[in-house]
């Protein structure tokens, strides 16, 4: 099938080859969708069969069908908790983006700030931040404030680092050019550094999405009366394993939606400020 272009044979055969090429191209494109679906179906089938065959206790591992049934019957409950988690994660992420971006900007533009804070930032980066969660409860109580603060704390760092790196790692020749045409520092930032930094900054935002969900779930584990983290912990005390899986599934979907949203915004921004 590799060479449909060598036009041998009567026109009808050539036309057929052309049609076949289109079909093959469609299949090639569809692979990216079809293959993951097949993987999913196969895994679920083995899981379902295994659980039924070996009569695994639903407390240890519920069958996919049981999880699906749980998802449907508890849908309202799941959505209520999901709403809490989503709104707090969204607020946390937005604040983390704001703080991370401003911090990265300061890091890139103020040598004084950079030199005086960088070792501490590395220190905090190397500390398992989950270990600090109880401190936030001591300081801010068991309300949304401590969950948000903790989420921001855990999510802002990759955004800060990527912003600083993106703004700093601009080809020196562009900076010289910018100076030569009498651009101010602010103009150089706005017209040169920031557009060049956007892909790196968005990479940081994407890590921030993941981190903010880790932050919010850990926060809900230890403080909350609502949210998917709370639901998971609560369900575990009742041995409602199917509910745990259903909550995790919902969590995964929300996380993907957040990620997709950032990816779409990135696409739109890079349509304007990309290098193509």
């Amino acid at each position, binding site marked *: 099938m590799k060479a449909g272009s060598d036009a041998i044979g009567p026109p009808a055969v050539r036309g057929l080859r052309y049609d076949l090429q289109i079909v093959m191209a469609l299949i090639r494109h569809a692979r990216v969708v079809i293959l993951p679906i097949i993987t999913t179906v196969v895994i679920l089938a083995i899981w379902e069969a295994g659980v039924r065959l070996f009569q695994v206790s639903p407390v240890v591992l519920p069958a996919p069908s049981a999880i699906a049934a749980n998802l449907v019957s508890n849908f309202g409950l799941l959505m209520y908790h999901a709403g809490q988690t989503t709104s707090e994660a969204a607020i946390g992420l937005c604040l983390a983006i704001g703080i991370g971006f401003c911090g990265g900007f300061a890091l890139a533009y103020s040598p004084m700030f950079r030199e005086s804070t960088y070792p501490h930032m590395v220190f905090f980066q190397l500390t398992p931040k989950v270990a600090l969660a109880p401190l936030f409860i001591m300081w801010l109580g068991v309300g949304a404030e401590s969950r948000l603060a903790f989420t921001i704390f855990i999510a802002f760092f990759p955004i800060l680092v990527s912003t600083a790196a993106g703004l700093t790692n601009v*080809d020196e*020749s*562009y900076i*010289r*050019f*910018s*100076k*030569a*045409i*009498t*651009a101010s520092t602010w*103009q150089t930032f706005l*017209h*040169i550094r920031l*557009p060049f930094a956007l892909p790196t900054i968005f990479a940081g935002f994407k890590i921030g999405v993941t981190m903010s969900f880790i932050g919010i779930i850990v926060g809900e584990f230890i403080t909350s009366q609502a949210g998917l983290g709370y639901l998971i912990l609560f369900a575990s005390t009742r041995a409602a394993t199917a509910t745990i899986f259903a909550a995790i599934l919902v969590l995964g979907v929300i996380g993907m939606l957040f990620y997709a949203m950032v990816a779409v915004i990135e696409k739109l921004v890079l349509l*304007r*400020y*990309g*290098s*193509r």
Partner: protein
Amino acid sequence: MSVQQSSEMVRVDGVRKVFGDGPKALEALRSVSFAVETGQFVSILGPSGCGKSTLLNMVAGLDHPSTGTVRIQNELVVVPRREIGIVFQDAVLLPWKTALENVLFPIRIMKLPLADYEPRARELLDAVGLAAFMDHRPSQLSGGMRQRVAICRGLIHDPEVLLMDEPFSALDTITRDQMNVMLMQIWERFKRTALFVTHSIREAAYLSDRVIVMGRRPSQIICDEVIRFPRPRPLSIMDSAEFNALCAKLRAKIDEAHGFDSGELH
């Protein structure tokens, strides 16, 4: 002020440049002085590392002499000035802007009225044969086309002096000849003082009214040669006996100063 002084656009006076300090200090330029008349096309010719780019950067206000002064229109150059247009070795076009937007970018930065300069930007792009590529982004243009956009961008705000730092050295020889012809045409049309840094003897001889030859570090001017070919100059003058004699003469001057190691000059 005498008549001669008033027609003087650029004056470099006793410029010395030392990089670093202490025992590791590197003297790049040692006492360089010259003046460029208004409307003159002057090339600075020299081997790599002779400090000719440093010199150009000082005229652009991007670098500062250790001692000595650089003046444009009798005013001391301390920071980059609007009287200057500059073209670098790389085109440094903004990849997200079209050719036209790139040409107009300095206007935006200088906060001049964009609408007033758009016709000029189109005229410049048209003059370098890019009329059909105004809405193309740099990634869709060849290396030679990108450098032509950069030249238009250097000229957009109607600067008094156009500085060019080996603008064609990254291009192949055939494209380079074409670019030289194009530069010649656009220069004759917009007639600005031009300071052109190159390590090509033939390029310098073809383009310039005057060639300033610089020696190796620490550099000094070793030769200042007036080129008298009439303009406009067709590319074919490069094949003439006079042209080749001139190039031989310039090469001899360089060899005289360096021994026979001018191999990288061509």
